[in-house]
């Protein structure tokens, strides 16, 4: 300690402590920079989220609206029921190709009657109505054969390009280059809209209708996909919740600490990190090729998603079982309950809110999962609604995220709008599920 005082007198600072020297300034600048980097990182993350949502919403919201044209159609007996005895089987013999001219002629006549000038050929006029419309008319007539011979006023879907014009996706300039639509058709559509015969309004069909072929984006809907996703969630809930809770109770409350339980625990944490597509390969190899379950069926999707969700549920359940203080168990054992009774009568009810929250979050994850479902054939084009459970679980169906993928693979740009719209539906479900989970947590969470 002598050295410090032995030397020369302490160097007096050149300046006041209140004036920053160059080094302090540099350090302060570095501090400010570092802080700015941090803030920038947070802002970039949030901006990315906002951009993502804006991109999806701006592309997808329009899919909830669709353009319809209203005009009277005379359901001529001569064409639709040549024998004239209203026998449903004879009426069914007339295919959609028989309805197409009926509809097209009625449309052309209606336009002429309204006195709208145009120079379109009949083919161009007919092409303005959706390819799906004759099939809808046919279904309507088959459901009610008495309509034949009457004149009914119909509201029919218009072609996807015309619909795109009203939504701003198709313009006069793009129509010039497009083989599927001419500027003349757009002019006529605008005239019809001005006259009130064509309008764009809310489109329930987008949520309830089944998928449509690649040439008819205007008719494509999410009905089958929503049912398929719902069935899969039923399967996941029915299997993953009981199995996951049972496994967690065993591991947390009863399992002896030995090699086997260690292996199981490592296994579960590793399973949680296995890429989802590997579960798809498992489903294809085991459930479809080995067990012979049908392709594209919600039961197979549900089983695969169950295996994927199990680790999530087990981890959440174990955490909430662990959060129940040991005093509860000891009190139960103290008044003579068996270990099993202590767990099932006292610990499990107290852990239930946490288990439920974990299950809902697991289900939400499963609902958005796409990759494994692609491998088990859920990409198939399905137009039939599956039957009610349990048989319906084995019918072909689609799933919401897979439907999104399906639509992105089609060439018509109108499907981009549909895909974004489907994502909005998917996100609404997810927000709802997560909100329920958060609510449950807020309402029932106990801190010991």
């Amino acid at each position, binding site marked *: 300690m002598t050295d410090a005082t032995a030397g020369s007198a302490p160097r007096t600072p050149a300046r006041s402590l209140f004036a920053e020297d160059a080094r302090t300034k540099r350090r302060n600048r570095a501090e400010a920079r570092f802080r700015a980097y*941090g803030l920038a*990182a*947070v802002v970039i*993350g949030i901006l990315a989220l906002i951009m993502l949502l804006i991109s999806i919403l701006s592309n997808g919201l329009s899919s909830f609206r669709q353009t319809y044209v209203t005009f009277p159609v005379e359901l001529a007996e001569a064409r639709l029921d040549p024998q004239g005895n209203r026998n449903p089987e004879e009426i069914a013999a007339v295919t959609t190709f028989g309805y197409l001219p009926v509809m097209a002629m009625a449309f052309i006549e209606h336009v002429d009657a309204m006195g709208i000038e145009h120079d379109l050929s009949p083919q161009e006029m007919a092409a303005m109505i959706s390819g799906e419309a004759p099939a809808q008319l046919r279904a309507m007539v088959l459901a009610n054969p008495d309509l034949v011979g009457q004149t009914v006023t119909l509201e029919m879907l218009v072609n996807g390009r015309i619909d795109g014009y009203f939504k701003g996706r198709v313009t006069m300039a793009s129509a010039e280059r497009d083989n599927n639509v001419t500027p003349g058709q757009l002019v006529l559509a605008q005239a019809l809209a001005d006259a009130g015969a064509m309008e764009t309004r809310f489109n329930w069909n987008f949520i309830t209708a089944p998928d449509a072929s690649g040439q008819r984006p205007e008719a494509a809907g999410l009905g089958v996909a929503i049912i398929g996703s719902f069935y899969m969630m039923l399967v996941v809930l029915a299997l993953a919740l009981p199995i996951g809770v049972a496994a967690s109770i065993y591991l947390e409350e009863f399992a002896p600490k030995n090699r086997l339980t260690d292996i199981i625990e490592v296994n579960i944490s590793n*399973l949680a990190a296995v890429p989802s*597509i590997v579960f798809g390969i498992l489903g294809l190899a*085991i459930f479809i090729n080995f067990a012979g379950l049908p392709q594209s069926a919600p039961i197979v999707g549900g089983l695969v998603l169950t295996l994927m969700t199990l680790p999530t549920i087990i981890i959440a359940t174990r955490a909430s079982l662990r959060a129940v203080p040991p005093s509860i168990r000891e009190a139960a054992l103290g008044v003579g309950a068996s270990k099993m009774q202590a767990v099932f009568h006292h610990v499990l009810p107290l852990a239930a809110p946490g288990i439920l929250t974990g299950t809902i979050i697991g289900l939400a994850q499963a609902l958005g999962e*796409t*990759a494994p479902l692609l491998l088990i054939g859920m990409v198939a084009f399905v137009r039939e609604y599956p039957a009610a459970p349990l048989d319906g679980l084995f019918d072909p169906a689609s799933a919401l995220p897979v439907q999104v993928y399906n639509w992105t693979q089609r060439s018509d740009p109108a499907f981009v709008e549909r895909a974004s719209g489907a*994502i909005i539906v998917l996100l609404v479900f997810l927000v709802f599920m997560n909100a329920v989970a958060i609510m449950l947590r807020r309402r029932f969470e106990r801190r010991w």
Partner: protein
Amino acid sequence: MPLLWIIVIVLLLGAAGFVLGRQRAVASAGGDARILHSLPNYYGTNVLILSVVPALLVMAVWLIIQPMVIESRVTGMIPEAAIEEAGSRSLVMSDVRRVADGLDTAIAAGALTPEQARGMRTELTDVRARLGEIGVALGGEVSSEVLAAAQSYRGLKRSGNLMMTVAVLALAALGLAYGYIRTNREFRARNAVEVAILAILMLASTIAILTTVGIVFSMLFETFNFFELYPWREFFFGLEWRPSFEGGSDLGLIPLLWGTLYVSVIALLVSVPIGLFAAIYMAEYAGKRMRAVAKPLLEILAGIPTIVYGLFALITVGPLLRDYFAAPLGLGSSSSSVMTAGVVMGIMLIPFVSSLSDDIINAVPQSLRDGSYGLGATQSETVRQVILPAALPGIVGAVLLAASRAIGETMIVVLGAGAAAALSLNPFEAMTTVTVKIVGQLTGDTDFSSPEALVAFALGLTLFVLTLGLNVLALYIVRKYREQYE
């Protein structure tokens, strides 16, 4: 009898057993439940478990084994000549199954009587046309061997189902009777029930292991099949990926692996700095209110399904990068590129990195910070020289976990990276990854005897091993280098 009915009947038997067992126990105690060893409900539950559990277990095992037995018996009926004609045994069998299902549909629709279906001969009836009438489409003409096999397939299935129904119901009744007879007031019903429940709990916890075993075996088995058809050297070291379903494909792993790693590296270059800085800011700088708003917002990013990111890459990020970076720089004109997929995947991984690092940074004890401040360090100096070194193992673990996520991610690359296998350095070029090719080779109708389909299993196994290795390494690093402060 439909499966559902069998289950319902077994459950009804179980419910009856519960009531009967409970009554018998109470009766044996002369109506005074205090004399019983266990609570009355345990006697009922004991009978219920004895009647329901063995019956349903036998049914499950039966359902798994019956198709295999029938398959092997029916396959034996088909002569070698018919198999050679169709190409493979599995193709003939799928024909047999389709014809059998068609006959079932025909009977259900009332177009055929069961006797007609059994007595049908190809010499007398045009089976294909007959089934076509009721909407069962068959690919080709039905040969007499296939029809005979289908008929015996149906017969075996019928008798198998009948036997199963009888066996399951008999077992349920037997279990009920056994449990009922055993019930008396001395019987330790609670102990018996608890042992049974414990067994069920144990069974449930082994499902996780069974899943892993299933994953490994399903892929190993098919991978071996693949390597019998295709040399493993060319798979692991091949530089070309050119599958063609006429045969003579080049199925080299290297270009796919290159694409996977390239996309993952870009994703990590985006997510690690942003995620880490965000975590540091949240943990060290942000006030309570800022944290309460920003943290959940960032975590929303983690809850968004990957297909949403995929669409975002496809319709927004891809065209943006192409129009403002790739095209002006002359680097490419494709909107799907390594850069597109990498950037979007990076966004997806931000919350993953940030929430893991946040936890780790928060775990560094306050005393270390206080000591550093006491020596005159600024906040950023403390973070860089004290906190980060202390948290490093955890952060490395988080980055490795993120890398494993990136490698296994599918939908973003399917929609954002493209499908052309290329070995190139240009990040604005479309490349493909292992996961994209698994989807590509296995989607739609595939013939599981061709190397072009089987390669997907080899790719899947490679992916599984890679991600598993990264996870194990991450856990190892976190455990080994974790500082113990308390």
